[in-house]
């Protein structure tokens, strides 16, 4: 559903099941899969949003974001209009034995975001609600912060991610990278092509 709505906009996915599901749902060059650096998904998306005019979508997780709550504060400080953060909140660390995360014990990530100065926020608990919120976010200035309450399901097989190739593929789709032969000679194509 997310892929159906976002068109060609760049997506950053959190490590683990989010990256696996994004790969299996629809691999595209503009998926920036992370496989390490837990907690940095939305920070990476913030760096992108500050460096391109395009809308950037972060698909984060509750466990990941809890590791780096400062990321929300920096989003609130920078307030990029083109950043949409979606947090898949299953209220547990699903990959490590289903331990309850802090969001199961009272931490309200939407209120955290509001407290950081992000005014466009939502908490949704169905696919229909998420689609409504996402469409509004795509059609209006952000930053947006959407908490999607989900239930843990079986995991898909690992996505065959190669980080260097991910970065190369992703980066080559941005004119700022591919159009500068002085700084990015490896992204140039032969004149005959």
């Amino acid at each position, binding site marked *: 559903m997310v892929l159906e709505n976002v068109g060609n906009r*760049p997506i*950053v996915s959190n490590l683990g099941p989010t990256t696996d599901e994004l790969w299996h749902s629809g691999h595209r060059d503009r998926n*920036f899969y*992370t*496989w*390490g*650096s*837990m*907690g*940095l*998904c*939305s*920070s*990476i*998306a*913030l*760096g*992108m*949003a*500050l*460096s*391109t005019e395009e809308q950037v979508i972060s698909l984060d997780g509750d466990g990941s974001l809890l590791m*780096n709550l*400062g*990321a929300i*504060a*920096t989003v609130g*400080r*920078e307030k990029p209009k083109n950043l949409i953060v979606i947090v898949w909140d299953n209220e547990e660390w699903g990959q490590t034995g289903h331990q309850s995360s802090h969001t199961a014990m009272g931490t309200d990530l939407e209120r955290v975001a509001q407290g950081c100065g992000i005014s466009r926020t939502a908490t949704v608990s169905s696919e229909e609600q998420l689609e409504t919120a996402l469409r509004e976010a795509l059609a209006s200035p952000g930053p947006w912060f959407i908490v999607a309450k989900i239930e843990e399901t079986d995991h898909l097989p690992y996505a065959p991610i190669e*980080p*260097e190739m*991910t*970065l190369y593929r*992703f*980066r080559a789709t*941005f*004119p*700022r*990278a*591919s159009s*500068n032969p*002085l*700084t*990015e000679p490896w992204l140039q194509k032969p004149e005959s092509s």
Partner: protein
Amino acid sequence: MTWAETLLAALKRADISLIAYVPDISIYQATKLMEDDPYFHVVAATREEEAIGVAVGAYAVGRRSAVFMQSSGLGNCINAIASLCLPCRTPIPFFVNLRGELGEFNIAQVAMGRASKPILDVLGLPHYTLTTVDGLDTILNGALDLCYASRQPVALCMTPLLHRGSLA
């Protein structure tokens, strides 16, 4: 030029315009110049690993970026370097202000300051120590060229001999 002006010139020469950092009084001269210069977008992060994420995001869409931190902050972001910058091969220069050097007053800063270069070594990252404005442009330009040619981070270690800055 002062060391800070030389540093800014090298960043501009390398087309680096996004700076992610955690504030540090010792190198205030440089970061203040960057904040006052519209060429740069300076992002203050709450923690150094967050700064790494922001810098990687900028690079991923075609904008060159750099991270400024103290040696204590290098300790905070080792996994971000090891699990993001290295496997993705992101050429992002790290400007690391070394604590535990001449004039250090805080015992809590000594161990991480001394551990910084060995940690960079075991990560396989080149590092250069900056001690004087003489020849600084040569080191900076050469290190930044190497960073992009090798498409991996390079660390520039700043010392009190360079910046004469106060410690905090």
